[in-house]
């Protein structure tokens, strides 16, 4: 990723709020009552540097930069448990996605967190085929992070192969479809 000038924390905060407010019910983030229901619903909150409730509290306190440096959003599995239970109607899963997007965009990579690498591998795989070949994805991901973990996964890959559940390539979208996907990407990411 190209070096980019470090955004000030105010710029980051503005960018974040703008993205949140662009989403349905985004403004509800201001109505958090700090009840902790989200953290109670979350299957991984005990592994997060900031629980979902603490995340909202930290954002309010102007500590977006600390949240971005944490493992919190990378431990989110997108189970939507918090979103359906929040009494204030805050779509916290979407907030987690915005935190991930912001970290990806600004190259914030907390130690021991491999999700950005997985997301990049996924995007690269889909850019190549319009679809995601599981083998290609895992090859890209493990070669880029930890080849030994990749080797440990070989057993599963072989078992899948024996049962006809692993193909070395995926089907692809048509060349016209590829062109469309590229145009969509350029517009959505640029604009």
């Amino acid at each position, binding site marked *: 990723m190209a070096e980019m000038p470090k955004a000030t924390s105010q710029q980051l905060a503005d960018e974040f709020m703008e993205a949140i407010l*662009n989403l349905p019910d985004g403004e509800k983030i201001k109505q958090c009552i700090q009840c902790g229901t989200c953290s109670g619903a979350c299957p*991984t909150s005990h592994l997060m540097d900031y629980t979902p409730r603490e995340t909202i509290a930290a954002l309010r306190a102007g500590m977006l930069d600390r949240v971005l440096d944490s493992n919190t959003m990378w*431990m989110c599995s997108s189970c939507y448990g918090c979103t359906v239970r929040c009494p204030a109607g805050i779509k916290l899963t979407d907030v987690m996605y915005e935190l991930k997007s912001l970290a990806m965009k600004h190259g914030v990579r907390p130690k021991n967190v491999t999700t950005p690498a997985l997301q990049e591998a996924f995007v690269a795989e*889909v850019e190549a085929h319009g679809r995601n070949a599981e083998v290609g994805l*895992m090859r890209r991901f493990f070669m880029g992070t930890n080849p030994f973990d990749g080797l440990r996964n070989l057993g599963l890959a072989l078992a899948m192969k024996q049962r006809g559940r692993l193909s070395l390539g995926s089907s692809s979208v048509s060349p016209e479809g590829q062109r*469309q996907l590229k145009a969509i990407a350029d517009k959505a990411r640029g604009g």
Partner: protein
Amino acid sequence: MARLFYPGCALEQSGKPYEVSTLAVAKALGLDLPELRDWNCCGATAYMGTSELWGLALAARNLALTEQLGADELVTVCSGCYVVLNKAAKYTASNPALGAQVNDALAAAGLTYKGTVRVRHLLDVIVNDVRPETIQAKMKTSLAGLKVAPYYGCQIGRPFDDFDDSESPTTLDGLLEAVEAEVVPYPLKSRCCGGMLMSTSRDAAVTLVYNLLECADRAGAQCIVTACPLCTVNLEGYRRQVAAKHGKAYDGLPIFAFTQLLGVALGLPRAQTGVDMGLIPAEPALTAYL
């Protein structure tokens, strides 16, 4: 009403048993499911976590193609695809500004999405359109005596509770009861399988899977029934890691997609049920029914 089928990336690979049984069961039930031509990856959690707008626009291309072909329903069997496609459909409808941004991106590719597509999970179509009574009438092999744990996972009912409850869903229970299986109480039925954390935070995901297996085992289940190819792989593919961390591998607890058990109940040829493609052997759990 015209329906198109969105298979999604996992289905033609690790989800093969689910694909094979879905197509065979749909045929047996007279459900027409032609594949959406030139569909693209829904983007899953990776695109949403890179740029929500990009993720929504990528998913919306599939909706635009569906509309272009004159269809008004897009049916998927993957809960991961279901939630992303449905999110694109609902967010563009409920938030005109966002809808305009998505359409701007689509316009760059010469496409438009007017907002007429309803995204559905196959479980919804089978329960609410085909109806359990129809399946019961066509049943050749009763699954009586088979103890099953119905596992819904997260994204089939969250955040969109279009056809079932987001916390205590029951549609799959009812469908399995229609083919006379014994549905065991399964309180973790909509808890998380770990999703992509299985690749990025293996230790955390292994424990989530252990909880699901242990809960089913204690309830006396002989198999767990799923409605998503991603949940399936997490539940069946990491038993060694579960055993290493929690001391039990649950060797006798296979995982089946709901279409596989429907295929067995409908008396389809064994190869069309995909039950021999599982990582955990289907027998002895299914011996009496095959």
